[in-house]
């Protein structure tokens, strides 16, 4: 571990992740599609990073920091709850299922790609 505090790597990666999520267009209350996109793409990247033997500093900055901040659970939970509130139970179940299925499939795909690299 270098002399620089690992917290700083996580924080800097988190800054980039939050900005990237914002720039992708993900906005709370704008719809669920952008949240699904960042969650699936971020899960793929983290699955790839975790399966690759990257140095711990890179895992902290890119994994815990960037991917962790790029994806979001709170916005997903808020948007799903709002669909339930609007009595769109089908939409809520679809959103929950797509995030879970897409996220887990993306992790597996990332690990698979790491095995090929």
């Amino acid at each position, binding site marked *: 571990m270098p002399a620089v505090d*690992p*917290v700083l790597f*996580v*924080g*800097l*990666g*988190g*800054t*980039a*992740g*939050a*900005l990237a*999520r*914002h720039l992708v267009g993900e*906005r*709370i*209350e704008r719809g669920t599609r952008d949240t699904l996109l960042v*969650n699936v793409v*971020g*899960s793929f*990247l*983290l*699955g790839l990073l*975790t399966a690759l033997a990257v140095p711990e500093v890179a895992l*902290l900055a890119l994994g*815990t*920091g960037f*991917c*962790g*901040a*790029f*994806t*979001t*659970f*709170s*916005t*997903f*939970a*808020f948007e*799903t*709850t709002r669909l*339930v509130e609007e009595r769109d139970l089908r939409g809520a179940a679809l959103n*929950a299922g797509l*995030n*879970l299925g897409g*996220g*887990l499939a*993306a*992790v*597996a795909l990332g*690990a698979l790609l790491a095995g090929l690299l």
Partner: protein
Amino acid sequence: MSDHAHRVEPLVLVALGGFAGATCRYLVDLAAPVGFPWGTLAVNVVGSFLLGVLLYESRLVGALSAETRLVVGTGFLSSFTTYSTFAVETAALGPTLAVVNVAANYALGLLAVLAGRLLARVVA
């Protein structure tokens, strides 16, 4: 000139919140017991509760500024909580614990938003 400033400012707010959110998530994870992804569950539930309070407060009362929503909601809370870590940790668990982890994050996360809404209503 002022147009430029207006375009930059939201990014600064999101960046500051994102730095703090990711850092706090990491510190919670370091403090959490090992053996089950307790840290991620904790940040996801607490972050969902706080986002519920923030967004329903905005809707019901509207005392908070758009800047506050950006720095706290889009910046801090969206970075404090994480879906990718939740997905990777779930994939690494055995079948039973994976189901428990998904059920706990989903059920408690949605209930936390509703609890946040309740608090926002009581305050409003």
